[in-house]
């Protein structure tokens, strides 16, 4: 299989006060196994929308196009089935779950996914061992496991918590939606390490970012530029450097 994820002619819109508003207008994208791709593009061009549609958020209507993930029709699957199949989304704005203990949430998720994959569930001891190792790698305190999911977390803690979940769920494809935004240099390095640790022929990442720095850490295979709901240019890592210097101005005309 030469492609892990294949998006073809994807159109998606959202209901805005009764009027459908088209956000994705024909996205074409292929991510082969083992590669790290980046999507860059101006605010509001539809990057988060793409990540939500791939993860199965119901508010968006897919009006045309198809997505295959490991040869399966991704759009026909429920969000939890996509998670079990190995698709992970690190949210741009991680959601708070009051009263839900972080460790308990993580264990529930890990075991739900393992069950669906036909793997044995982790018992309390096994889970604790794995999670401790993971938190250590991410320089997270155990204290964060005892707190409620994302409640009262700082921006950086939330992002690290996303990476922790990613590490624990062992996805085939991780979509990181601006996971680097708002992080200081140290936190950024830790997050990047978290992704790098997963790199293997079996793991791909689709990294949505505005910043060259995270990409320098990760060494992406390809860069895609999204403008007004379409991928308007794809190229090698040099594209990211060009954007860093020139911004998106030259791409905006291409999209028109």
């Amino acid at each position, binding site marked *: 299989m030469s492609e892990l994820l294949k998006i073809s002619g994807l159109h998606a819109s959202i209901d805005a006060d009764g009027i459908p508003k088209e956000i994705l207008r024909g996205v074409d994208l292929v991510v082969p196994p083992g590669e790290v791709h980046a999507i860059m593009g101006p605010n509001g061009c539809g990057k988060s929308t793409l990540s939500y549609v791939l993860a199965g958020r*119901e508010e968006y209507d897919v009006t045309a196009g198809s997505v295959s993930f490991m040869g399966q029709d991704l759009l026909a699957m429920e*969000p939890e089935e996509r998670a079990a199949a190995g698709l992970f989304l690190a949210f741009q704005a991680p*959601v708070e779950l009051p009263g839900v203990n972080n460790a308990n949430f993580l264990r529930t998720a890990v075991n739900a996914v393992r069950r669906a994959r036909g793997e044995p569930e982790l018992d309390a001891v096994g889970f604790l061992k794995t999670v401790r190792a993971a938190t250590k790698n991410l320089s997270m305190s155990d204290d964060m496991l005892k707190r409620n999911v994302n409640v009262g977390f700082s921006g950086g803690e939330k992002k690290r918590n996303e990476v922790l979940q990613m590490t624990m769920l062992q996805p085939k494809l991780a979509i990181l939606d601006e996971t680097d935004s708002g992080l200081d240099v140290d936190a950024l390095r830790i997050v990047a390490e978290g992704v790098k640790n997963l790199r293997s022929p079996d793991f791909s990442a689709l990294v949505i970012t505005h910043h060259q720095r995270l990409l320098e850490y990760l060494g992406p295979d390809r860069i895609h530029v999204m403008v007004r709901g379409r991928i308007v240019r794809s190229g090698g890592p040099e594209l990211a450097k060009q954007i860093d210097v020139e911004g998106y101005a030259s791409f905006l005309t291409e999209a028109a």
Partner: protein
Amino acid sequence: MPAITETREQVEKLGQSSYKWGFETDIEMDVAPKGLNEDTIRLISARKEEPDWLLEWRLAAFRVWQTMTEPTWAKVTYPPIDYQDVHYYAAPRKKPGPKSLDEVDPELLRTYEKLGIPLHEQALLAGVEVPEGEEARLPVAVDAVFDSVSVATTFRKTLAEAGVIFCPISEAVRDHPDLVRKYLGSVVPAGDNFYAALNAAVFTDGSFVFIPKGVRCPMELSTYFRINARNTGQFERTLIVVEDGASVSYLEGCTAPMRDENQLHAAVVELVAMENASIKYSTVQNWYPGDENGLGGIYNFVTKRGACRGAKSKISWTQVETGSAITWKYPSCILQGEGSVGEFYSVAVTNNYQQADTGTKMIHIGKNTRSTIIAKTISAGHSDSTYRGLVRMLPKASNARNFTQCDSLLIGDRCGAHTVPYIENRNMSARIEHEATTSKISEDQMFYCRQRGLSQEDAVGLIVNGFCKDVLKELPMEFAVEAQKLLQISLEGSVG
């Protein structure tokens, strides 16, 4: 162990319906004829070989009851109840109050085992398998009430050595008449309200607990109520008296078979806490709620009240209400002793066509009394759930404090969630704070959980449990774990 200790796996073996406790026990019964009149009451009293004073007390209550009308202020609707169409006494045909477990009908023991409540002390003491990662459980003494009578009470000897009395109330009437006479009806008078008067007239069994001065009860006490017989009402009466400096934690669980007709349950619970005494009363109410079309289910009309008589006494009610077609229940605290403390922690879940009107009353009489109310209401399906609570600060309640937090969660747009607090303050130095919110599970939260691989139902269960956490953490450990599962089972079919 209470019924809810059943793991869901065990439960699934019992049947495909989502109510897992709905089986019926086939056992020979001694049943009073239908109808309520003085003869019925005399018959109950005679069956229980009661002293005259108690019969007179019952008859007086009955006469008051006849002059009363059913309360109509609660936000619940149901067809009129024919109080003459109910059996007021039903007992397994075996001598009530067996001396030892060997005398208990093996069919009954099997019933309780099936419910997850082994009554063999041996089994309990040997330590049931402790699931990995969980603490070993302390033994719990159980009083098992089957329809109108107590069929077994465990660990009586161990408790007696500590000076604790834990027995069926009918037995306490015989063995500790002075204590019963002194406290029975002292917190909930016989004519307190329609259902309390009915209970006083016809109550059949329930538990009696007495913890003498300075004794910390060495184990959790629990009563497990089971309605089995058809067309019978259950009218149990529980009395817990805790003397100066003593303490107890008491648990209560209940289930009933699935039937098309509605069955009546009108219980009274009285708690008395003397100086520095503390009572923790936990309930997991899981009476049969009726089917998904609202057919059948228990009418649960309960009066629970605790009197903090002594200074610095404390009464804490924790309830998880998932069962019953109709719930009408307001566990209350009379805070009389200086510096006494009342607490009410509640989770009420309604699904399908269930209706619940539940809450508490905190009556602050003494100085420096404090109360806390945390009520979580969850409505799904076509159900209606109301929190109704009263906080009253009387003129002498100087520096009294109350904090109330009521949160409602709606699942689906066919249900209702209501909050009706009554706040009355007649003391200028008393402080009352009340907060209430109503919301739904956000799409964001659901999607986040599902993106991490959780099914819709598991996601709802997780979020609901989070919503209820402040209450669930008040439950004794093993109860809390099971209550979480119960919440999820109760909400089955409410999403998707």
